[in-house]
């Protein structure tokens, strides 16, 4: 068994947290990563460009029905929910969930629904409650749950909310997240 997807959710303070993770991932990191970073609905492609500076793994803003491929990093587009289907992504413009579109809960819940125990869910810094329900579902399907140690988060509300609601597998500092992902995925690969 191997992991089919890593889903990462973050809000306030997410940009620098994501940079930290991406820069520490090896170039041969194969497990696909899907990211929801809350942002304004009129955002342009700046986030993608800023993140791309920190990794050679290709980062793309998802288009509807895009295939989920190894070694790729996918970003939820502004003002759309990002959902996982078997082998590809789908988008939706449904009402915001927890005031957010894209919503972390929506991504996590759909990923857990499709890939069950083969999902790793990661909650990073943020100033709201989005992601908690999603992480709960990842755990209910026996996926791996990881939360950034609140003390190392620019905004600790989101990690704290997740920890309060879910018996999380790993609570680690920001700098430990990338090595942990590598370990989990490498271990499974061998």
């Amino acid at each position, binding site marked *: 068994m191997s992991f089919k997807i890593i889903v990462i959710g973050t809000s306030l303070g997410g940009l620098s947290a994501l940079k930290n993770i991406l820069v520490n991932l090896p170039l041969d990191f194969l497990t696909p990563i899907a990211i929801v970073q809350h942002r304004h609905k009129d955002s342009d492609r700046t986030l993608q460009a800023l993140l791309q500076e920190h990794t050679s793994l290709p980062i793309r803003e998802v288009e*509807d029905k*895009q295939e989920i491929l190894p070694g790729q990093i996918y970003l939820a*587009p502004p003002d759309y929910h990002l*959902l996982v*289907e078997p082998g*590809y992504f789908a988008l939706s*413009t449904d009402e915001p969930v927890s005031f957010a579109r894209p919503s972390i809960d*929506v991504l996590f819940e759909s990923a857990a629904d499709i890939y069950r125990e083969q999902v790793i869910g990661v909650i990073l810094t943020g100033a709201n409650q989005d992601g908690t329900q999603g992480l709960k579902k990842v755990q209910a399907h026996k996926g791996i749950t990881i939360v950034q140690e609140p003390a190392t988060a620019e905004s600790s509300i989101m990690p704290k909310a997740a920890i309060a609601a879910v018996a999380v597998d790993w609570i680690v500092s920001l700098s430990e997240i990338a090595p942990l992902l590598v370990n989990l995925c490498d271990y499974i690969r061998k």
Partner: protein
Amino acid sequence: MDLPKSSLEDIEIQLLLEGVYQYYGYDFRNYALSSLKRRIHSFVRLEGLTNISALQERLLHHRPCLDRFLLNLTVNVTSMFRDPSFYIAFRQQVIPLLRTYPFIRIWHAGCSTGEEVYSMAILLQEEKLYHRCRIYATDTNERVLQNAKNGIFSLKLMQEYTQLYLRAGGQKSFSEYYTAAYDNAIFRASLRDNVIFAQHNLASDSSFNEFNVILCRNVLIYFNPTLQKRVHTLFYNSLCTFGILGLGRQESIRFTPCENHYEEIAQGEKLYRRLN
């Protein structure tokens, strides 16, 4: 060998959709399951039920529940001049092509409550082409279409729409297009002069004309690849040669069998021209 396990919930959804299709003829079987599931769950909660099987019972035995269900499943979030850069590209790249036709047929498929239909009508009036156009605005849902026909939207939204209108290259004062009454903005009836509102279901109905432009924005994202393929074939067959197809910002023909039948005409905007 273990058979791939369907969850009970997946089986319930399958039975529900099959029942709705066989009994009422509404076909949601090829909708994208991930977002459909969320909507069904929220509808189950809204109806005060505990599971999807209970919803099936109510749906099949109580017709009013079906109407609520359809509304819940198909209402999309829409706005006027959504993605202003799309309208700019339309003005710059498509309008000059349309000027060469004596008469222009436009199909707005999945128009929902009509915000984008009024946006296009405004654009065409400003480009002095509207009198030569006929816009066919279709949606599966009758109630939603009635809203579109009325052209009455919340006044609260007008500030945001004015901004989008200006960013979309609007040439006038946006308030010229509507009359404010109580909490509503009532759009000028002249914008509807050449619009035909009609019920059409992309999942089951066929083509009904040949068009110079087909607009279908943020509708196909709700379909699975099988249904997307059907609809793309329908659109292709409904467009004249060199006809224009406009999709939503994050939609693409790249993952469909029609990919090679179109060329992109505006970098980064989802405007395509049928080639052959």
